[in-house]
């Protein structure tokens, strides 16, 4: 049975992994998507659905970690305009 603590841990791992992207766009997307994904399934009570969602979350975590390595190998040369402070 997947308990609440595990779900919260998974959310935290996903958010932390998503933070490592050097590219602004995918970094923001990862954060937005994980939070949306967890919020949509927030009120699930059916045990099998919860397990399914948790398994999918774990799969996505593997994907994120793998893709982060690829992105880190080719970091962007310039900063995205959204990252520049207003002057």
């Amino acid at each position, binding site marked *: 049975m997947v308990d*609440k*603590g595990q779900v*919260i*841990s998974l*959310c*935290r791992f996903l*958010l*932390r992994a998503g*933070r490592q992207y050097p590219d602004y766009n995918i970094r923001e997307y990862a954060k937005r998507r994980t*939070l949306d994904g*967890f*919020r949509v399934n*927030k009120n699930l009570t059916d045990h099998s659905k919860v397990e399914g969602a948790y398994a999918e979350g774990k799969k996505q975590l593997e994907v994120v970690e793998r893709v982060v390595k690829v992105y880190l190998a080719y970091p962007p040369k310039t900063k995205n305009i959204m990252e520049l402070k207003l002057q």
Partner: protein
Amino acid sequence: MASLSTSSLSFKAPSVQSTRTSQVLRKPLSFQPISFGRFQSSKNLRLQISCAAKPETVQKVSDIVREQLALSADTALTAESKFSALGADSLDTVEIVMALEEKFNISVEEADAQNITTIQEAADLIEDLAQKKPAA
């Protein structure tokens, strides 16, 4: 620091700590005069951790919480406000802790992160980690 005679725990900025006596005095009052001088000079890290966080830290934490939970400007945010009382569920708490990590450039452990329930606890943890970092 001429604060040996006062009853508030004032290892750092003396003027600030007077409001926090009720919270900070976890150690019995008699303990203070004995070890105060020694701790002051050796800057014992262990005791500093149990001190209340600075008000600037609490203020910054409050600002982040206010922004994350989209609270209106007139909702009163005290150091003792619980996140759940402000309408935050566990996911919101995770988001808040992440935002705090980014803002203060610290890394919160799993176990610590699950125990944060009020603004004061968050501020204390931040101060704790900010102190440990330069020492490491």
